[in-house]
């Protein structure tokens, strides 16, 4: 027959275990909230793109390409297309959906794209 003291010890161990587990959960939750962790899956990479004039197919140099919004936070650096119309988006979380804003010759174009690490953008202006 168990002594009443043994039952008390076992109860205490059980409550102690529950308390430890709960504390770990609460501490972990607090840490996540404090640090605004997003915990995305996938990878980060740069995506290449090319701008061309829709009427002639000629490359567009000097356009400014920015990320205006998207699934994940992104570096706030802007790309500028070169003489081949080539630009690169900064390192962003992929796969993801992003809204691009392109400024060129006093005009602008906004488009939303679904990107993967293998994406290559070809954008008519």
């Amino acid at each position, binding site marked *: 027959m168990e002594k009443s003291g043994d039952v008390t010890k076992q109860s205490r161990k059980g409550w102690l275990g529950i308390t430890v587990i709960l504390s770990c959960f609460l501490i972990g939750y607090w840490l996540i909230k*404090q*640090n*605004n962790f997003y915990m995305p899956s996938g990878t*980060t*990479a*740069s995506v290449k793109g090319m701008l061309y004039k829709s009427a002639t197919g000629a490359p567009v140099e000097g356009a*400014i*390409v*920015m*990320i*205006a*919004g*998207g699934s*994940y*936070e*992104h*570096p*706030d*650096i*802007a*790309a*500028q*297309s*070169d003489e081949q119309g*080539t*630009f*690169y988006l*900064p*390192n962003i979380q992929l796969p993801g959906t992003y809204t691009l*804003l392109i*400024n060129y010759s006093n005009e*602008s174009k906004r488009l939303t794209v679904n990107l993967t690490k293998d994406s290559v953008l070809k954008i008519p202006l």
Partner: protein
Amino acid sequence: ENLLEEAGTEVTDEEGEGGVFTRDAFFASYPELYQKSISEVIIGTDDRVRITPTTTFPWRAICSLRITAKNGSRWIGTGWLVAPRTVITAGHCVYMHDQGGWPKSIEVIPGLNDAARPYGSFMGTSFRSVAGWVNDKKREYDYGCIILPSNARPGDKTGVFGFAVKDNPYLLSAYLNLAGYPGDKGGNQQWFMARKAKSLAPRVIYYEIDTMGGQSGSPVWVKVGNARYAVGIHTNGLVSGNSATRIVQPVFNNLQAWKNLGM
């Protein structure tokens, strides 16, 4: 409580002349208008303000950056002077992991204002960042600098920012100022906005200050009397809150060391 402070340049003659409007003092002087501006953000207006002319302090100490990466790709960012030859910016402006690493060159244009380059432009080829960014690509370590050549000393004319470590209560109650060169305005105009912080992490400041690509590296500063102290380096955009690398003690120590390199 001020934990660590590195003083910048004090107010200049131009700013002291009667009636000159200093935007970063505006909300501190007119808090009722701050409340009004918040409500305007809620209904979707662009609350950025164009800075022109850019020939008064601190605006003239903020620089447009034209970055040529190692692989030849081109980028636009923002930086700010803390010494005659030291320009602080985002780590991802001076070390680009997917573009070959350290850039070929960065053209620094203090106070750029459309076609006007009131303080000229300078080519930088010497860069600094930290292992947490270069090796580990950690967002909390996203900061760096450009050290200009010995004969390029724009900070002597423009004045320089101070920088400081501020604790959580201070940062949550202060007006945070941010100005830089957004690409959606052509990348040649300086635009400004001020807000209080939205939230803080140990090494990141979050805010709802409107920014756009091209403003990476912008100073996030507080105005204390007539002095400006940067408390963060703007780096990231996100709909729920843009953010800056927070100046904490290790960051402060590096900024101070880089400042000394550019004296």
